[in-house]
């Protein structure tokens, strides 16, 4: 076996050990070392050179990145998650026929879908979904994400929130927590459009807060334009619908004059 490959494999073993110990700091350092090592393999994307060890290398690299993704979830670092997932993706998409599919593939893809849902990037969510084969949709992890999205779109927010209890994978919990916040934002947006004002108690219930305190905090943080008075929350829709009364007369005059001049110049 190639010495380089062995070296990386050993490093990876140490990483796994640290991961098992839950020693996250060690994991991060080891991971970045691993990644640097990986750049030295020409068989990896984007080059895909057909070296004798290509299959092993690809498998190992995929394994490393899968762990990196899971690690980023553990660290609750969404940026790192995105970064690692993007780097992992070519191994799923472009290596069919070279290495067998990974057992972790669908859980991780589902995780990514969930992340997109959390970040409310619905368009990208559907793009990703389109890329998946039909049979993948039956996989519980993917199915879970798809169903969540449907409920989310329908406005069946209670179903979204209750789905937290039925996660197909333990890593999903983190995102499910985040999803609750996304749902709240959606509701807040809808209420803003739908009502002129809401009583504080209604608003509290609607936005799923247990106390007035939390509601107040939420409002000051996320929607400072809302107004609380007389025990109600006012959404101040009136402000937006103020009609624009000024007529751009100068601009119109200029335009008309230039038309006239252009007409003159028709040859």
């Amino acid at each position: 076996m190639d010495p380089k490959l062995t070296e990386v494999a050993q490093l990876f073993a140490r990483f796994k050990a640290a991961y098992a110990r839950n020693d996250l700091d060690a994991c991060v350092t080891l991971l970045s070392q691993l990644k640097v090592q990986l750049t030295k393999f020409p068989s990896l994307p984007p080059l895909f050179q057909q070296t004798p060890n290509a299959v092993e290398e690809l498998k190992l690299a995929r394994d490393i990145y899968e762990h990196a993704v899971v690690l980023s979830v553990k660290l609750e670092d969404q940026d790192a998650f995105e970064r690692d997932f993007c780097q992992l993706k070519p191994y799923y998409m472009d290596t069919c026929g070279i290495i067998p599919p990974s057992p972790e593939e669908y859980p991780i893809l589902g995780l990514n879908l969930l992340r997109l849902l959390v970040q409310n990037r619905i368009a990208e969510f559907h793009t990703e979904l389109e890329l998946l084969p039909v049979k993948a949709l039956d996989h519980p992890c993917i199915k879970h994400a798809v169903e969540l999205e449907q409920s989310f779109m329908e406005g069946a927010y209670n179903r979204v929130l209750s789905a937290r209890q039925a996660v197909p994978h333990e890593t999903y919990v983190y995102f499910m927590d985040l999803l609750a916040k996304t749902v709240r934002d959606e509701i807040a947006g809808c209420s803003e459009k739908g009502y002129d004002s809401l009583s504080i108690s209604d608003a509290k219930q609607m936005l799923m807060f247990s106390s007035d305190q939390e509601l107040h905090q939420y409002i000051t943080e996320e929607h400072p334009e809302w107004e609380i008075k007389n025990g109600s929350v006012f959404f101040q829709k009136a402000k937006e619908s103020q009609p624009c009364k000024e007529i751009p007369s100068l601009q119109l005059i200029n335009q008309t004059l230039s038309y006239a001049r252009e007409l003159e110049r028709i040859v």
Partner: protein
Amino acid sequence: MAAVATVSSASGLLAMLQEPAPELKLHALASLNSVVHLFWPEISTSVPTIESLYEDEEFDQRQLAALVVSKVFYYLGELNDSLSYALGAGPLFDVSDDSDYAHALLAKALDEYASIKTRVSKATEEEENIDPRLEAIVERMLEKCILDGKYQQAMGMAVECRRLDKLEEAIVRCDNIQGALSYCINLSHQYVNHREYRFEVLRCLVKIYQTLPNPDYLSICQCLMFLGEPETVASILDKLLSGSKDDALLAYQIAFDLVENENQAFLLNVRNRLALPAPVPSNPDTGSALQDDQTASTGTGAETAGDVQMRDDTTTPNGNAHTVDPNEVAHADRLTKIKGILSGETSIQLTLQFLYSHNRSDLLILKTIKQAVEMRNSVCHSATICANAIMHAGTTVDTFLRENLVVIHFYLLPLHRIAALAISLSHYGVVLQEWLSRATNWAKFSATAGLGVIHRGHLQQGRALMAPYLPQSGAVGGGSPYSEGGALYALGLIHANHGEGIKQFLRESLRNTSAEVIQHGACLGLGLAALGTADEEIYEDIKNVLYTDSAVAGEAAGIGMGLLMVGTASEKASEMLAYAHDTQHEKIIRGLSLGIALTVYGREEESDTLIEQMTRDQDPILRYGGMYALALAYRGTANNKAIHQLLHFAVSDVSDDVRRTAVMALGFVLYNEPEQTPRIVSLLSESYNPHVRYGAALAVGISCAGTGLSDAISLLEPLTSDVVDFVRQGALIAMAMVMIQTNESFDSRVGAFRRQLEKIILDKHEDTMSKMGAILASGILDAGGRNVTIKLLSRNKHDKLTAVVGLAVFSQFWYWYPLLYFISLAFSPTAFIGLNSDLKVPKFEFLSHAKPSLFEYPKPTTQQTTTSTVKLPTAILSTYAKAKSRAKKDAESKANQEKTTEEASGSTSGKAAKTQEKDADAMQVINSYLFLHCSHIFKDSWTPSTNCISCCSKVDNTAEKKAPEPEPTFQHLTNPARVIPAQEKFIRFIEGSRYVPVKPAPSGFILLRDLQPTEAEDLALTDAPSTVAGTTSNTAAAAGQQGSGSSAMAVDEEPQPPQPFEYTS
């Protein structure tokens, strides 16, 4: 592993860029660089990230980042950003890369560099600093081109980037220096827009030329002429003249080439710098003196042979009367000859002889016009006279005038040496024929001036010819001022651009008169004769006329001043401008504004302030002059800025005159790229404004003149049937200018156009304007006896000053019909004239590798066509028609039979007579062709040889099997020959013939090297309209003008005594 994995997205790599570890970033960048051509759309969203990497001072691979960004920008089409990042990439940006990216960026870099350099050269004090990185890239590229042997590319880039040092390097390192230099000269004329810079390039080229062991003097002198350095040209000529005989030939050739560019001031300068030859007596009238000397020294064939011998072997004693050193004699002789050439005398005289002997004008066309034109319509009447003048321009054939004009006996005067003396002033003014009497006042002026066009270039007899009409000092009141003025104008036309001899006389005439009509003629004449000489005294004389503030004289004075100052950009222009603001007369303003425009001829950027001043003036007439100034300053440069400005005025000015002129001016700016003009003005030609349409028509006419360009004809065709009369007029004239010398077999539309002209002229209900246009168009179409074309560029791609100026003033005929005659300045003969070392025309044959019919003269019109158009269709009964057709067929077949027998017996081929063929006609054609051809081969001792007979009989046999071949694919031409521009590319010289051309040009004046100098030479063109024994005086007569009306005159005969004619009063 059957499946080869490919990446489907760059998102992984992009994500890697965000990694904290620099190694990963580096890896990501390197990988991105290799896939950027596939994933640039994806990468483009992350460009800010990569840019921040480039800007990160600590990142050690900033250049790589720059390269990636540059590539992305390239794919996004943002070449400017791309270039600036590519520069940031430093050495990573590979000039020798063979990718689209590298090519595009290099081109961009060059453009950028060139434009910066151009800007730098314009900015006077503040210097724009050039990015050294950019410069480095360009230099790397130039170096690479030179190393790869792509010298032309390197030269082009160097010229464009204003790196004369690199240009010089490229040329010197090139393996074919001569070729490189001529390429560069072309380059500088075609692509260097900036005049100053062009001069620099040419100076650089001349410098290189002079370092060569075997310089190409022809090209050097062309450059020097452009640079305006007569001293150097003179010294080169002098050196060549003292060299061998071949060197002398080369010197003559150079002189002819210089003359072709018509730069009078320059030529005079060169001539004056050449040492004065000893045997020539000093004479104020140098022209005639030279002529005499020339004829004297090379008078007889024996003497010529002696001269030749003398040159080959200097020890041979010379049998001549001169006792001086033969070497010196030879040198003096050559000096005289070259001065003759430089003065234009030689070429003008040869041209005159050529035009006279090859004149093929069709008098029937004129006759038709004359009959169709109404008596009372003076416009058409004058137009007819003008058309006649144009048709016979430079041929000295004035048959039509003599048959028809008022002043008929005046014209005949010079023909009869004795008669000229005998007829006294008392005969003047006798009205001979009723038709002629129509020419009154200005028409008389025009008619007399027309004589000048006909006798254009008749330098020796010019004054004698015009003598009867010229103002007589002392005897005032003899002739009408109109004919006197016209005569002065005519003298100007005869001596246009070669007015050394006549200037003095014209000045005196101008001073001695106070009649404004005479002043008018004299101003025009002086302007023409002293074209571009910037003579201070003449200027003062004309200015005095201008300050009399008479409208008629002032207009001509304005134009005359302009002609005098052509291309000098002197400060006189502001003086003229000031007077134009003072005066009340529109005519004077117009004359002056055209004059001002003429002064800036060819000065390009230098004239921008003046142009700006004129085009912003309140007075539309001055703006109109501004358009002319733009046209002339940027003549034939296709300068984008000028075109842009003209188009702007063409659509935005409030005055129709200005708009019309602006469009027309496009023609002048674009004449070096005639293919472009129809495209540029095509929209304007569909304008709602008739003035713009008229301008568009003339613009095409001017820039495509003589090209027969199909696009141009297609554009003009609809305009010839425009709803507005003057548009039709313009279109007809323009069409004639485009189609000049194109015959029907070259473009079938020519025939249609001729028929259209005839129809318009004969149509009683046609507008006067378009009728006049049609008459003029007929004249232009057959100009100069069908042997001239309108050419604004000389063969060396120089602009022909006289021609351009001529057309510019000609286009003024809108306001003043007599200016029509200026078109004659634009005519240049389409001839190949080969000359031997004595500047005689030897018999010499060469080939034209094309069907003769493509370039032959149009067929002369027959009486039939003129009458048939008037004839009404008669009803024909079917039975009658059948019988008639049967009868016709019989007659035809009979005729054919007869012809065959005749032909056969004529060719002494007995066999041919016996063969009875159905296809008799075809065979006859082949027979006669071969017969002729054989006669060419055996021309020296031609008797009906057996060879020829067998040839004919062979054809008889083959004709039975083969389809008839109607036309040969080549044609023998004999020196001097008519070679029209379209034909030039088919001209080949026959190898092994006695004479070898000094330069392999297909037309123009070509010096021929004689390979058998000892044998006697067979000369052509010995007869000329101007073979005169005496000196120039009023007693001289044009002996060549036989009275017969036939245009095909015998070439070799001695001039006949004048034929008797009667005066009928």
